[in-house]
Each structure stands twice: as structure tokens, then as C-alpha cells.
């Protein structure tokens, strides 16, 4: 009843274990156990590598999304943006190949282009939101349509493909690795760790939370609100570009259906991970757990024949809800 006691249950506990913290982890462990029970190959090196590597795209994007959401924003355009950036990258790399041949510089230029394009796309979103002052939902819904159209148009309705030889050269960026750990996994881990550090241990992370919590307070505390918000969108755009750098060598192509629904998956991962949708509190490690939960569901469904493939979506939906029930037990309403 003293001040001390009441303040304990307000979460963000340092040290103490509570549902909010362990909820997502419990869900993850449960999925792993189910996987082990269902199929002996589940824990095989190949399967684990596959699951982790393919989580990397959404994972890297979701880390960026964590910052955007923590600062009270939202970005629905990331999936289309990824498709567009991938298409642009492929187009330009194919062009470059004609002049530079199948060579490393082409790849490096392509990577640079993807990063810059992602950054610019994020900047556009950010400027429309923070400077022009339109709701993030609307801006990114708009740019979602725009990028999706642009990739369709770039690909002339079909598929943009990287030249075959170029693809072979670029391939190791997805399929290769060091010490048996593939590059996408390494990239994901690096982004996640950096993200966690930035969120918890830098002024930027703290300012994001403050803005998401109460923008006026942040402004009164002389935080450059518009600039920080803009930075979250730019960061997200950059990470989308980075995810594309990993994605293109996987399939070597981009089309109108590339990155479809990635935005929902990324947002779902962020929220499953315990970040508040309304902003004010975010945790990157939670997002990572959320991403893994989502990929594992897909993987588990492929491991068994229990359910009609028609019902995959239903299982996914149910698990998403359950994962959050676990952590929000008696928690806040929205």
C-alpha cells in the first residue's frame, strides 16, 4: 500500500519477471516445443537456418518499425516500399551489368542504391507526416498504393529479374555466411542488437518513447520532436533498403506481389513483442521474438498435415491473438 508497492506493478520492471516480459518468450518456447513434438527435423540445422534466414527481412524491417511505433507513428508502406526498392535495384543492376559487366562493383552500386532509395522513401513519408502534418496512417496508406503501382509499372505487370549470371554472383549474400551462420541471420542479429542498444541506451531511443508518450511534453522538454519523428521514418526506410539487399539475392526478382502484407506482419511482430501500438514504450528484443513467433507458425504448419492448408491463416490468426493474450493477461484495453 505504500508508494513502493503500487509502483511495482506498473511494468518496465528492471529485474523482476512479469507476464508482460515473459509472455512473448513463453509463446515462442511453446511453439518450439510443439515443433519438436511434431517433427524430429524441426531442430535440424537446416530447418533452423531456413527459419531464421527468412525471418531476416521482416525482422530487419520490424526493428525499424519498433522505433516508428514507439514514437507514436505507423508505417503501412514498408511492404510496397520493399518491392519498389527491390525492383529499382534489379533494374539498375541489370543496366549496370551491360556497361560494367558481371562484377562486384555492380553489386556494391546496387546495394548503395537500395539503401539510398529506402532512405529517400522513408524521408518522403517522414516529411509528409512531420512537416506537412498528415496522419501517418493516411500518408503511408497512400505511399503504399503508390509504391505498389510503381513496381507494377516498372515491371510492366510482370517480374523484374536480375540477369542470371549476376544472380549467381550475388547469391552468396543470402545463401552464404561465415562459420555456418548465413548472412541474413548475421545481419538480422546485428540490426537487432544495434536496435536494442539504440532504443535503450541512447538519447534517440528515449526521445522516441517520450514523443510517443506525450508529444507536448517532449516538445516542452526541448526535444526536436519533428526531427526525431522524421528520423524514425528515415531509419525505417533505410532498414527496408537493407532488408531488400538481403532479399534480392534470395529470389533474384521483384514483382507486384513482392513484399505483400509485410507491413501487417511487421506491425504484428512489433505488437506481439510488447511495444505499445499507441507509442510511448517499445522494446526491440520483443519485436525479434514476435518475428520469430510469426515465422515459426508458418514453419510449423508446413511440418504437419494436421490442418487443411485453407486454414493456415486461421491458425496464424489464432496464435497471434493467443501470443498477446499471454502477455496482456488482464492488461490494458484499447
Amino acid at each position: 500500500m505504500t508508494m513502493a508497492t503500487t509502483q511495482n506493478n506498473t511494468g518496465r520492471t528492471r529485474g523482476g519477471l512479469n507476464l508482460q516480459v515473459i509472455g512473448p518468450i513463453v509463446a515462442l518456447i511453446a511453439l518450439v516445443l510443439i515443433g519438436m513434438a511434431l517433427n524430429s527435423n524441426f531442430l535440424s540445422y537446416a530447418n533452423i537456418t531456413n527459419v531464421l534466414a527468412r525471418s531476416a527481412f521482416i525482422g530487419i524491417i520490424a526493428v525499424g518499425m519498433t522505433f516508428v511505433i514507439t514514437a507514436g507513428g505507423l508505417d503501412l508502406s514498408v511492404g510496397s516500399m520493399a518491392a519498389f526498392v527491390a525492383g529499382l535495384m534489379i533494374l539498375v543492376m541489370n543496366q549496370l551489368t551491360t556497361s560494367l559487366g558481371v562484377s562486384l562493383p555492380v553489386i556494391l552500386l546496387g546495394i548503395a542504391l537500395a539503401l539510398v532509395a529506402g532512405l529517400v522513401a522513408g524521408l518522403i513519408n517522414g516529411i509528409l507526416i512531420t512537416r506537412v502534418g498528415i496522419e501517418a496512417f493516411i500518408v503511408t496508406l497512400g505511399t503504399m498504393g503508390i509504391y505498389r503501382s510503381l513496381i507494377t509499372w516498372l515491371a510492366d505487370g510482370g517480374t523484374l529479374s536480375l540477369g542470371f549470371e549476376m544472380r549467381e554472383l550475388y547469391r552468396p549474400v543470402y545463401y552464404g555466411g561465415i562459420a555456418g551462420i548465413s548472412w541474413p541471420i548475421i545481419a538480422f542479429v546485428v540490426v537487432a542488437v544495434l536496435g536494442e542498444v539504440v532504443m535503450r541506451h541512447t538519447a534517440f531511443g528515449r526521445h522516441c518513447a517520450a514523443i510517443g508518450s506525450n508529444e507536448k511534453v517532449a516538445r516542452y522538454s526541448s526535444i526536436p520532436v519533428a526531427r526525431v519523428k522524421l528520423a524514425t521514418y528515415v531509419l525505417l526506410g533505410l532498414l527496408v533498403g537493407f532488408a531488400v539487399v538481403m532479399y534480392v539475392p534470395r529470389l533474384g526478382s521483384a514483382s507486384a506481389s513482392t513484399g505483400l502484407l509485410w507491413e501487417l506482419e511487421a506491425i504484428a511482430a512489433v505488437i506481439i513483442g510488447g511495444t505499445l501500438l499507441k507509442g510511448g514504450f517499445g522494446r526491440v528484443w520483443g519485436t525479434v521474438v514476435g518475428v520469430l513467433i510469426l515465422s515459426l507458425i508458418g514453419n510449423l504448419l508446413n511440418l504437419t498435415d494436421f490442418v487443411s492448408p485453407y486454414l493456415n491463416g486461421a491458425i496464424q490468426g489464432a496464435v497471434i491473438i493467443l501470443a498477446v493474450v499471454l502477455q496482456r493477461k488482464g492488461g490494458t484495453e484499447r
Partner: protein
Amino acid sequence: MADPILSLNGVSKSFGPIEVLHGVDFELRPGEIHALIGENGAGKSTTMKILGGYIDASGGEIRWQGQPVSFASSEEAEARGIVMIHQEFNLAEHLGVDQNVFLGRELKRGWRLDHAAMRGRAAALLDQLECHIDPSARVAGLSVPAKQMVEIAKALSRDLRVLIMDEPTAVLTERDCEILFRQIERLREQGVAILYTSHKLSEVKRICDRVSVLRDGVMVRSAKVAEITEDEMAAAMVGRELSDLYPAKAVPADEVMLEVEGLSVPGLIAEASLTLRRGEVLGIGGLVGAGRTELAEAIAGLRPRSGEVRLMGRTLPAGQVKTAMERGLVYLTEDRKGAGLLLDKSLRENLTLPLLHRFGRVLIDRRAEEAALDKAIADFAIRAPDREMPVGNLSGGNQQKLLLAKTLLSEPQVILIDEPTRGIDIGTKQQIYTLIAELAAAGHAIIVISSEMPELIGLASRVLVMHAGRIVGALDGDAVNEGAIVRLAMGLGESNGEAAA
């Protein structure tokens, strides 16, 4: 006497078509504690926000050390050492205490935040304020006074040359006030210029060096505190002489209106019992965190509870605010902004919110609503420049009056009032006291929770004192005095009466 560090010269301010400050002149000097007093809506907060760089003046001149300046933003003002504590909290609720204290000016080691240093310094600041909250606790979970202490700690953590505080003591207990005063006296010694507003004139008299009085946006008087009496201050503010602040106490009847037996709220309230009679004004005193608010909220159905609550003989089910209201029991919250008013809605919408079903069957009768608002504005002397404005733009005191009007709209029999005069000017305070006395005399039963000792003593015929979630004593008649209340509130000594129940 030192030269003014910050001054206003013929400053005016308009919000849209309405001018609220009309050519205000004002000087603030280093090493003085300066009080700005005035009625609710007189323009005190507005003046302070102009000084703090939060809003622009519409006309006139602001001077910094004699030179005209115009602050493009509060940051510019802060860069000069001007720090303001707002009337409303400016804390990021999701963040921790230490994180709030250093928000925007985080301590770093290289590019990394220096968590340990910030927590350490926050702890030291809180220690200095004798505030025993965990620096890593989330602000959302803090009590109102604790939040105010965090605001103060935040201000103290800066390099101060001018400290502006908008009613800092309104939400503090007396003990906290004393701590605050010690701090500002210390700052005065260091040559900091301190400007603050308060509706507690005795406090102004005691600790301030100078007092300036605003009335209707005009600076009507500025004098050394030594040269002006409390009554003169009040008269200057209100524009008339005030008679006795507290009306005569009504004599309670025998009829029991409210009976609480063994009420517990897990972790907050243990086995509280009380009875309230018709025509009685029952005070509840105690320190911050004693659980007075929780007790009242539990009775009113806003918190889950165990134990028995009987309203006029009938058992009141737990956790049902609406039933309580319909049967004639209401609770006036202490948290005006967080739980009392919808800041982005108009006066009318706020006033009728709990009672919409009385304004028309299916469709809301807008005209009846307007009439109710007319009546509320008249009854409670609410001063609103525009009826349709969002109530967030009303002055703090007028918000409080609107909240009172809203709570009393259902014409309840039993009224639980938590901190009724927080942020209310002395003229209005008197009106509210009179109102409470009248309600009691008309046969209502009222519980007043207040951290202002004189208020409890002046209003209540009987006072219960809470400590650590328990009712530890009841004081009656002549036994109601500051010393006794404080002793019980600190947890020293039992007394007779309902405490044992």
C-alpha cells in the same frame, strides 16, 4: 535592490478575438521570491507562459536583463536559465522518474546514456526533496503529489536563473510544501529569481518577498509582502472585501446516510469503516498516499473492493459507478485532467456527460443542455471566454468549477469531494465553502478529503485521519485541530472512535 532580470513592459495577449492580458507591466529580480496572485482566469498562467517562452505575446515587450528579447521557443528561454513548472503536469507517463527528470537533456557517456549517473542524480534530487519514490518507477503509477515533486526535481536539475512555478503547491501536502519552500529559499540565496503563483495567501505572506496582483488581465498592484496584509491581497484580487472564509458549520441530523463497514481494497485500504449522517460534513485527512482517494473511489464504485457499503440503508454493489450515482452518491475526483474533464470537448459536453439520459429520451435535448450550462455558469461563477471552447483552454480554476458543476449535476444526496479547492482562487473558494455548507444544511451528506489542514478544520464537524491505508483516528468538535490531525496522519498515537472498527 538588484536590477530586474526578466520584465514585461505593456504586454498584452489575445487568444483569437479575446484579449486576456491588457498591457501588463512586471519585473522580476534575482534573489527574490515573487508571488503572482489573482482570481481564476485573471491571466497568471498566461503571463508565466509568456515569460517562459511557451507562448508569444500579442503586444508589448519582454526584457531580459534590460534588453528586449523575443523567445522563439521555450528552449531559447531555457538556454538563458528560465525554467517553468506548469500548472498541468508535463511528464511522459510511460517513462520512468529519472528518465523524465533528464528528458531532453540526458546525461551521456560518449554516445551512450549514462543510466547510473541519471538515476543517481535523480535519486539525489528526490532525496533533497525528501520524496521517497523509486527513481526508476514509472510516472504513470505515481500519485499526484509525487508527480509534482518529480516536476520540481526536474526543474531543480537544470541550471537555474529564473524559476517560474504555476501553482506548485496546489497539489502538494503541507509537508511537501515545506520541503519546497526550503528549496526555493535555498535558491533565493543563490540569487535565483523565483516567480510563483498560489491561491494560498498565507503561504504567500510567509515566504514571498514581493507580490503582484493580476485582475482581469491587468496588473493592479505590486508591493513588498511586508507592506501588504492577506486581506488586502484578497481584496486586490477580487476587487472587494472578503468576509469570513468559512461559513458556520451545520449540525448533522441523526439519520445515517452512508455506512461503510470493513471496506478493503487489496494492497491499498484495509478494513475501513465509517458512518455519515444527513447534514454532516465529514473530513478525511492524512498524508499523501494514505489512501484517502482510494477509499473514496472504492465507495463510489470506481475500484474493486470488499466489505459492505450501505447508502441510505440499502447495500451498494461494488464496482458500479452508475448505480451509485443513480442512488445519489457521487465522487469528485482529485485528478481533474486525468479523470475529471475531457479537455478537447466543450463545456456543455463535459457538464452533461454523466447524465445524458436525463437530457432527452433518445435524442439529446441540446436546449436543455444549454440551459443546464447557463445555470452551472451562474451557480459556480465559471468564467469562460467562449462557451464552445475546449475546456482544456479554460483557466485551471474554472476547470475545477466546471468539474464541481458536472459532479453535482445529478443532485446527489451523498457527495465525496476529493481536494475540492485545488487551484481555486480565494474568492471562489469562499463560494465553494458556502456551497458545501449550504448543501449540508439542505440535508445532503458530504465527505471532504483535503490536504489543506485549515480547510478540513474550517469545514468539517468531524475528521477521520488515515494512515497507510487505515483509518487511524476520528476527531470531533474541539479535538479537530492541526496538531491532532498531523499526529494521527504521521501514524503517531491512536485515538477513540471509529478507528477501531
